[in-house]
């Protein structure tokens, strides 16, 4: 028996390692993703006033703080039992679109394009964003410009690119100024042009990755994403739709407050990342995927013209249900286009410059759930408070957590296909990392559970044989 460890997995957000156990013939026997950090926000926010939660939980992540801000603010809206003003809802959604654009740009251009442009087997020392920058300056410039545009949208609305405090329980704390709206609108044509030429480029190179497409998490699973009443893609609002591997809707329009009827949470050994599963199937078979690929698999359409054109081509080309996780990249680009188009529609809404932007109230409910689509998938913030509004319990289900079981299965599939333990090459291991990157996981976002992680200590002999073990479930 031989064990290969990929530590750390690079070009992801947060920290993780992968262990691959080989048998005596050098074939893959077992794999596991280990998320090696714990953040603990669920526990240490207990006792804090509920209205501090958006600012506190935004600190979970430097990449998608806006997602946590919005999910948290929505949970607080529920505790206050308010319906926020129309203008505030529109503004929050624009902020969210800016977040999608910058986050998707980061994932595609900065983190995954080195694999796609330089090759899975290229020199690992140059297979990074700096290598892309050297060899493909036009694409690097596009990536930088697109991410910058998304960040400028966030900064224009919320005054800060990272950890803005503009989103508050009940709405937002400042209206949109016409000059900011005009500035964002002026930048949209170029941003859309960048995404469209990137899509054209990416579709042109897909054929070079047929083996990866066939083995990168290309296995049946369920899919989950938010849709509106008509079944169209929703990022800020809507209910959860679950589809099975064949594309049949198995649950639809699940409201935030009802998520626990459908989603269970399990813990895995040797990892701080909890593993949600579809409850009626149970653990561990209730695997579902979330995020860009899942969203395009569950939605009927995007709802904006250019993105819908791409959505149609995506499904015509790859099928009604697209199973390969390699296509997260493709779906991510389509969503970036949707985010830009949606932003444009919202900025042109007559109500967008309204001055009524915040509802005020105290504690009117002792429990609140906020749910949105973060760039990586469904994000749920669930709080309970006492009469004074202090948090007594918090549960966070973060996008990467939903994908935990799917990522583990994908790693296993990739490892079994690509790894030959007797002739090990770096490119084989890079493919194992690349499937993790396809999901664009954010591990620093997703490890908050306290008291749920089972302790499992193994004492191994020099040959890897188990000598003793201690378990605390």
């Amino acid at each position: 028996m031989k064990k290969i460890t990929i530590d750390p997995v690079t070009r992801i957000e947060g920290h993780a390692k992968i262990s691959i156990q080989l048998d005596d013939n050098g074939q893959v026997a077992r794999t596991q993703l280990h998320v090696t950090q714990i953040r603990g926000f669920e526990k240490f926010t207990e006792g804090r006033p509920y209205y501090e939660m958006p600012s506190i939980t935004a600190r979970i992540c430097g990449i998608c703080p806006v997602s946590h801000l919005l999910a948290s603010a929505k949970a607080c809206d529920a505790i206050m039992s308010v319906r926020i003003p129309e203008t505030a809802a529109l503004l929050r959604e624009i902020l969210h679109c800016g977040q999608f654009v910058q986050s998707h740009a980061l994932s595609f251009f900065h983190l995954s394009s080195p694999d796609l442009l330089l090759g899975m087997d290229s020199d690992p020392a140059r297979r990074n964003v700096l290598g892309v920058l050297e060899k493909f300056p036009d694409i690097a410039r596009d990536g930088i410009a697109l991410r910058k545009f998304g960040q400028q949208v966030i900064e224009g609305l919320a005054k800060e690119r990272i950890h803005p405090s503009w989103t508050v329980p009940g709405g937002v704390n400042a209206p949109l100024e016409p000059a900011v709206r005009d500035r964002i609108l002026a930048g949209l044509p170029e941003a859309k042009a960048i995404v469209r030429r990137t899509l054209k480029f990416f579709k042109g190179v897909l054929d070079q990755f047929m083996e990866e497409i066939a083995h990168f998490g290309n296995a049946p699973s369920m899919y989950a994403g938010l849709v509106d009443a008509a079944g169209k893609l929703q990022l800020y609002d809507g209910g959860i739709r679950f589809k099975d591997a064949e594309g049949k809707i198995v649950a639809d329009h699940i409201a935030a407050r009802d998520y626990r009827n459908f989603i269970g949470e399990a813990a895995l050994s040797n990892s701080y990342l909890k593993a949600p599963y579809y409850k009626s199937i149970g653990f561990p078979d209730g695997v579902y995927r979330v995020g860009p690929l899942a969203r395009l698999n569950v939605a009927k359409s995007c709802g904006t013209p250019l993105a819908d054109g791409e959505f149609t081509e995506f499904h015509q080309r790859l099928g009604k249900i697209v199973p390969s996780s390699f296509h997260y990249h493709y779906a991510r680009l389509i969503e970036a286009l949707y985010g830009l188009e949606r932003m444009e529609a919202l900025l042109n809404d007559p109500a967008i410059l309204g001055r009524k932007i915040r509802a005020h109230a105290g504690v009117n409910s002792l429990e609140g759930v906020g749910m949105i689509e973060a760039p990586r998938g469904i994000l749920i913030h669930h709080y309970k408070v006492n009469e004074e509004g202090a948090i007594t319990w918090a549960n966070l289900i973060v996008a990467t957590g939903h994908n935990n079981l799917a990522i583990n299965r994908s790693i296993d599939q990739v490892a079994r296909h690509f790894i030959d333990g007797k002739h090990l090459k770096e490119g084989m291991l890079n493919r194992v990392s690349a499937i993790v990157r396809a999901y664009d996981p954010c591990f620093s976002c997703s490890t908050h559970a306290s008291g749920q992680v089972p302790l499992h200590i193994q004492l191994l002999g020099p040959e890897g044989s188990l000598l003793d073990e201690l378990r605390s479930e």
Partner: protein
Amino acid sequence: MRKMDSEECTANSRKAAQGAAAHSTIQCPLPTALVIGYGNPLRSDDGFGWHAGRRLGRELAGHDVEVITCHQLTPELAERLSQSQCAVFIDADAQGNPGDIHCRAVRPQVAASSTFTHLCTPSGLLASAERLYGHSPQAVVITVSAQSFALGESLSPVVSAALPKVVDQVRQWLRVASASQLK
């Protein structure tokens, strides 16, 4: 926090100090300049770049100087650098005696091989600016040796004492850079 390996620019600073007015007000126009203060402001002295950046932002208001504070250097900064005539990177240093100030000129240099995308260096960023946008500014890195990287938002007394000196040094260097740009 980064450790730089470029040449010392102490001589430049000395010249600058000699040429500078005794008071700290900038007398001549500055070139289009970029100041980047970086580090973790929640890790005591590692936040030195933020403290210096904020102070410079206040003191240089009205001049053609942009001040950016950030946790780490990222590829996006290449574009901003390419639009500047001169640039100052301000960081904390884990080496040296606490409170020591070091100023080094830094030139574009393609980063050494790295598996880690998160690791951008000033010289690497300057190289990116040149490669992607056709220009990189004259630049220096000013570091202050830290005493503490413990959790906290305040600077240690010895590092705090270096703050006004660094602010002056930045201003003086910008004056020298300005003069050389005008030639």
